[in-house]
């Protein structure tokens, strides 16, 4: 994972509530055994028509969205399945941050593990963003703030551990492996607590 400190980018707006993981990446594209190459299927059924041609009206197909690294969407983004293919597809499509008034739990966890930053802002703020599709925003991970072009800013919640992982580009597996002693001690204490055969 590469470090993620600051990001400045135009936003792409998808003003819909409850965007589920089946929209982000439909199940028929989950037969892959790798993480790569899913970007072309992101929002597939909204992005392409029945013949597979890009729908010019869909926000991510518009020329101004080509540079967008920040996706702004309606509440409860990422609900549905636990497929990590959803953040993989978004990242592969160039998105590094998602701003919403609510982000589903598993999607949020999956996103952070891959360096995709989930940002929850108040609904009224997100609604104003959704009305300004050409806006540029700046995100500062260390400060935990989103900056508007005029210099105004708002904080967002990001726990210390996730922040460190993003800033340093480290992943959780390395940390977990470093806890080997504590895990072994737990196993010795609980050897027969749970019965698995």
């Amino acid at each position: 994972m590469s470090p993620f400190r600051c990001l400045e980018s135009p936003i792409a707006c998808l003003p819909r509530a409850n965007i589920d993981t089946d929209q982000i990446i439909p199940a028929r594209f989950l037969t892959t055994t790798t993480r790569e190459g899913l970007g072309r299927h992101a929002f597939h059924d909204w992005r392409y028509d029945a013949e597979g041609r890009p729908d010019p009206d869909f926000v991510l197909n518009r020329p101004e969205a080509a540079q967008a690294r920040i996706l702004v969407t309606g509440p409860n983004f990422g609900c549905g399945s636990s497929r990590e293919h959803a953040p993989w597809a978004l990242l592969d499509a160039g998105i590094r941050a998602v701003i919403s008034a609510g982000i589903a739990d598993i999607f949020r966890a999956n996103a952070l593990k891959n360096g995709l930053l989930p940002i929850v802002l108040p609904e009224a703020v997100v609604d104003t963003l959704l009305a300004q599709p050409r806006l540029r925003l700046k995100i500062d991970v260390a400060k935990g703030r989103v900056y508007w072009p005029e210099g105004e800013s708002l904080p967002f919640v990001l726990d210390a551990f996730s922040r460190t992982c993003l800033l340093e580009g480290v992943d959780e597996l390395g940390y977990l492996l470093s806890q080997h002693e504590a895990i072994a001690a737990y196993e010795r204490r609980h050897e027969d607590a749970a019965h698995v055969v």
Partner: protein
Amino acid sequence: MSTPRTLFDKLWDAHLVRPESAEAPALLYIDLHLLHEVTSPQAFAELAARGLPVRRPDRHKATLDHSTPTLPPGPEGRRAWATREAEAQVEALRSNCAAHGIELFDWDSGRRGIVHVVGPELGLTQPGMTLVCGDSHTATHGAFGTLAFGIGSSEVAHVLATQCLLQRRPKTLAVTVEGRLPPGCGAKDLILHLIGRIGVDGGTGHVIEYRGPAIEALSMEERMTVCNMSIEAGARAGLIGVDDTTIDWLRGRERVPQGAAFEAAAARWRQWRSDEGACFDREVRIDAGELRPTLSWGTHPGQVLPVDGHLPPAAPETVRALSYMGFEGGQALAGTPVDVVFVGSCTNGRLSDLREAAAVLRGRRVHPRVRMLVVPGSEAVKRAAEAEGIDRIVREAGAEWREAGCSMCIAMNGDVVAPGQLAVSTSNRNFEGRQGKGARTLLASPASAAAAAVAGCVADPRPFLGLGAAPSVPAPAFAHEVDA
């Protein structure tokens, strides 16, 4: 006296390798991890890239379900793979399990099936455990007083390598269901109704504990149906405390201790309940007595209606769903013509579900307009259903009887609803395109699904179950030729 604790508190505390701190989330020990072909290949690749072994192969069990065809193999043993990729994915799990010494419930092992059906039926899912799977419906296992939740593929790698996960303590939500379910209403109606009440994000950040008289009266299979759809309300997990129903269901299962050892385990398992007076962060109460057979009408599982209800009017929050579904605001749900009926999935693919559908189908014919698929949740469910003749009832009604798997629930295995078709399905998600691109889904109980199959349209299942007035089935002119 110590402070009363919720079931969740007990499960969480018992599995803490390290509590949460200002710097890091809690380190939670995972007793059992279940794997399937779709979300695991990238995790095994991660282990391979780092040269890591699986820490405890005995605590991982794998099955094949999502991308497996449900048609029986052809004459040369060839299976009807949807794509070559799907076949490669299944082969990848088989070879990963072999390489790491993980037990796989393989083709024709007699144990294969949907991951959330096989865990409980083998007795692998036991009270007091932490259990995870790279699948959001892992909440199903919470019916056993098990802390069970879905994880992503990175976390699958974490559990394989360390048997632990980094987790933040969720909040608790008590859903107390008073009263009794009326005749003709089941667990599926209850959970759909609840999601309609609290919303598709009503449980976000929470673990739900279902309790109260109506929950205690449910069978284990019904409890699994309820817990299964916790994620559809956004919850991390669903839980139900252990009681006699739990213990009786587990006794004699293949992977639980047997004889005296079982009774000793059962005595320990009984502690996995919330204490009297335990505090939850939130509480919701519903009265089961109010329920009617319930179906979804829109494009998320919170958009639900009683079968005799009318769709909401067109409004900013409904217009998109109405237009995708091709419905008018205010129209009646009952009587809507149906093209496909699917009975199966980890929500309603267990023996009691198939019995419920068969009770409606017995002696009747599926409407000529309708294609109906009945797909057992596991090879064991299929065997048990065939032993009681359910397969015959299904076939004689003109429906297809398939091999175990996820099938049309996720439509990545060749079982697909065609664009524009309307399906009544016993699965758990009605998202746009969930059952195939452009497919439209109404979620329902097995009885409602079977009633729709016979009537050719959305119909109240109660008359088909001998409750209330006789069912209105289409005139004989439309019916198939009935087998002699």
